[in-house]
């Protein structure tokens, strides 16, 4: 049986502020209680448009993206020059930097071993989403 569940994590990464011992003078920190660092809130600007993906390969090494990294992808953002995008090309998702030039759109890897791809109409390119953060295990 399958239950419908929500993608948003209900486990927040929080760094709680410590409450002082309440004897005598009231803690001035009480005004600030409830403030916490929530990575979901800070890394996910548009929860409804945010998806996650796993990197496979080394072609974006120069941009600091390694094999196995977790990507935060925002579909709501526009594909503008210089952004790193999840593209759908020739039947698979692939990671490239977008380079818009006079002669059209170039998908540029960040690794000398690979070459930039020029995208014409015949390639059927889909920019699926824009990478906003890279999460890596150290």
């Amino acid at each position, binding site marked *: *049986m*399958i*239950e*419908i*569940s*929500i*993608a948003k994590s*209900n*486990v927040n990464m929080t760094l709680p502020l410590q409450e002082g011992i309440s004897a005598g003078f009231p803690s001035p920190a009480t005004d600030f209680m409830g403030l916490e660092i929530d990575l979901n809130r800070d890394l996910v600007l*548009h*929860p*409804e*448009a945010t*998806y*996650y*993906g*796993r*990197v*496979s*390969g*080394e*072609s*974006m090494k120069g941009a600091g*993206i390694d*094999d196995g990294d*977790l*990507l935060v992808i925002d*579909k*709501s953002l526009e594909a503008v020059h210089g952004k790193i995008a*999840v593209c*759908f090309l020739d*039947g*698979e*998702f*692939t*990671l490239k930097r977008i380079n818009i030039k006079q002669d059209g759109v170039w998908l540029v*890897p960040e690794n000398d071993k*690979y070459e930039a*791809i020029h995208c014409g109409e015949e390639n059927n390119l*889909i920019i*699926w989403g824009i990478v906003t953060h890279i999460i890596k295990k150290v």
Partner: protein
Amino acid sequence: MFGLVDCNNFFASCERVFRPDLAHKPIVVLSNNDGCVIARSNEAKALNIPMGAPAYQYKEVFDKYNVTLFSCNFALYGDLSNRIMNILRTHCFRMEQYSIDEAFLDFSGCKIEGVGLKIKTQVLKWTGVPVSVGFAPTKTLAKLANRIAKKFPKETEGVYVIDSQEKLIKALKWLKIEDVWGIGRKSSNKLRALNITKAYDFTLLEDNWIKANMSVVGLRIKQELLGKSVLDFQELEPRKNISVTRTFDKNYTKFEELRERIANFAANCSEKLRNQHSCCHSVLVFINTNYHRKELDQYNQSIIVNIPFETNSTIEIVHHALVGLKRIFKSGFEYKRAGVILMNFSPDTSQQLSLFGGRNIKHISLMKTVDKINASLGNQKLRLGVQDTNRIWKMKQEKLSPNYTTNIADIITIKAKS
């Protein structure tokens, strides 16, 4: 003005979000146990694959036209639905979610110029799911406007507004009587027999006749069709009954097999019941043999077990469901289908204390803990011993897509190899 936003071929469109290679290709989504077709992309509709078609009967068509099949993946559809509903909420001050893939939006006193296109564009860009939008002065007409938007995507660009008498008449003359929102098959057959074939014909009927033949419900439909809003805007209400019913992939003859199934269904229902903060008073259990196999002995029986107190404890509900099963089970039959329905709800907050044999108060906190553990460890990690003891049963889901949005092990892989 009311808006109705409805996703186009929702389940099929969800599958396509993470499979852009399937754009413009025929897709069908199959029901539980991969039994019947429950959603089709436009391309699959064009192949004349009907809704509800048994999958095995259409195997040749699927093969011949390269139709991609999917087992239904409600974790994925539910997540995308939540995203869409959250987006829609930002466009209006009140919203009524009508089903997993459609919602009414209240635009009373607001300008709607350009709003439809904005909604459509945003939902498509943010989630990848195409929607159609209809606007009209009543909910029933908003449904109709949406139907027009969906039927004529080129002319309407997926958005249609009924905002003049002329457009209203034209739409009513186009809409078939059986497609009017709220008119069931029985009524539409009756109306067709009287040569009332279009919604427009229906609006010409006398109030008295409608009231006599279709009660006030029919009268309300007429008023709504004429542009007078009489249907309330309903913000989400808890459901009045909860059911889990399944057709098995094989026949069961043993009591133990059915006991496992019924316990599992009842446990599932109980969890849903707690999710909406209700308790129930009765549980219905039914078992059926295979109706289509006339050569086999037939036996269909159901029973309602009234629980002497209100509860939403899995332990208590499963116990009473099994008491019911024991009463109706007969050996010597091959069972193909069974189900559990919980009924007679009351809010979880209004606990009546019974002097003798009330609900076990300890179960309340126990169930909270169970739900919490299951939420973090995955579905049904913690369950009753009677559930799934020998893993007798497993849903047939041969074509299940990954849970791209709800399980981190299933997220898309992005190649960085070229």
